[in-house]
């Protein structure tokens, strides 16, 4: 995924975090966000940042999921609803164009699917083990609104 920073070699599951000795832990329980920073991170995309291993960005919560969202580029209108309402910074958007899902950090909550305005939706939930291309091939057709049905 385009938002992956080279500073992270492997997005390890939180469960598999290595336990350090007393003489290895940070003084004062301090945590650093970056290894180095040459400007305000507000001006750097995630892939341009030198994340510290103590930044949760470097960890993965993929094992939290039982279901996952699959993104359909062909239907998406780049409205950015999913981007603004994702609680896990897992919708990747660049230059006003939707790229896709950051599966390291997505918990499968399903909010993105609910707020997607297209018909059919451009994001749908599938079981975790479903292959993305398989899922795309199963995409439903446009839903017809029956008389009196609420939007």
């Amino acid at each position: 995924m385009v938002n992956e920073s080279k500073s992270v070699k492997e997005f390890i599951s939180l469960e598999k975090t290595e336990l350090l000795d007393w003489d290895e832990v940070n003084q004062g329980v301090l945590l650093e966000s970056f290894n180095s920073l040459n400007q305000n991170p507000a001006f750097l995309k995630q892939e341009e940042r030198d994340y510290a291993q103590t930044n949760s960005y470097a960890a993965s919560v993929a094992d939290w999921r039982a279901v996952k969202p699959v993104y359909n580029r062909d239907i998406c209108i780049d409205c950015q609803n999913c981007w603004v309402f994702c609680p896990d910074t897992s919708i990747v958007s660049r230059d006003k164009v939707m790229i896709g899902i950051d599966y390291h950090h997505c918990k499968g909550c399903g909010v993105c699917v609910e707020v997607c305005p297209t018909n059919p939706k451009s994001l749908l939930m599938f079981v975790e083990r479903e292959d993305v291309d398989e899922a795309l091939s199963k995409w439903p057709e446009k839903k017809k609104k029956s008389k009196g049905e609420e939007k």
Partner: protein
Amino acid sequence: MSTIKKIKNLKEFSTANDRFEGAHLLCPGCAHSIIVRELMNCTDDNLVIASNTGCLEVSTAVYPYTSWDTSWIHIGFENAATAASGAEAMYKARKKKGTLKDPDAPVKFVAFGGDGSTFDIGFQWMSGAFERGHDFTYICLDNENYANTGGQRSSSTPVGASTSTAPAGRISYGKKQKKKDIVAIMAAHGAPYVAQLAPNKWKSMVKGFQKALDTEGPCFINTVSACTTEWKFDPKDTISITDLATDSLMFPVYEIINGTELNILYRPKNIIPVEEYLAAQGRYKHLFKPENRHVIDAIQKDIDEKWEYLQRREEAKV
């Protein structure tokens, strides 16, 4: 000099580079992080953030991980407002003495607290910080209970809600006391800007955040944070529940500038009966028993009166 960046529409907003990282421990669907992301994306300024003990703090800084890309401090349950006060005072002192590393870098001080720490245990600390007039913004993430510890009642819990310490039972319909009007209380402190905002109405939330950050002095914002775990609804419905909250006017969205100019920021096209909002959450399902229906009527009445009051005050400009 104002450092507000112009955000015309959601596409423009989406070009912001997130400074709140994933793999935090908040529940799937939690509105806290939606609100925090809207705050951190609405400005490019450096931020120094203080958080009270609560869901946000406990899920974003568990050793050895931090989800914050800006400096952040948690001291205890009550004192984020004071931590921000201390940091802001240090900034002022060092600016005067010329000992800041980058004196021209714009920085904003923000304190976050849940409703438990804001309305209850940390109220004094916040009140003191506002009386002293520190230049910071206090944002309350209001999920109407002590969610972090399993859903106990707070003074923000509304009438009729069932919580673990004031549960609905054979002889009780849940909380009997009314919710504190925190926005009015903070406006009465003489704060130059206070507001109640909702993350589903992202545009007014972002504008409100920007106004607060840009206003010199202490600003207070209460935000409705729908809690999938304690309000008891499916995680995917966080935004739709928030829609019901704002459309039923259970959570009116408004701002008060300099204590006198009240502006309603969202007027629902169709105001829905609060019953629809209540029906969508497990914490209110007991209210639909025949013996409790009077509570729903009382809730509706309060909402209607509050809405009437807000409109009149907006008109009268007092």
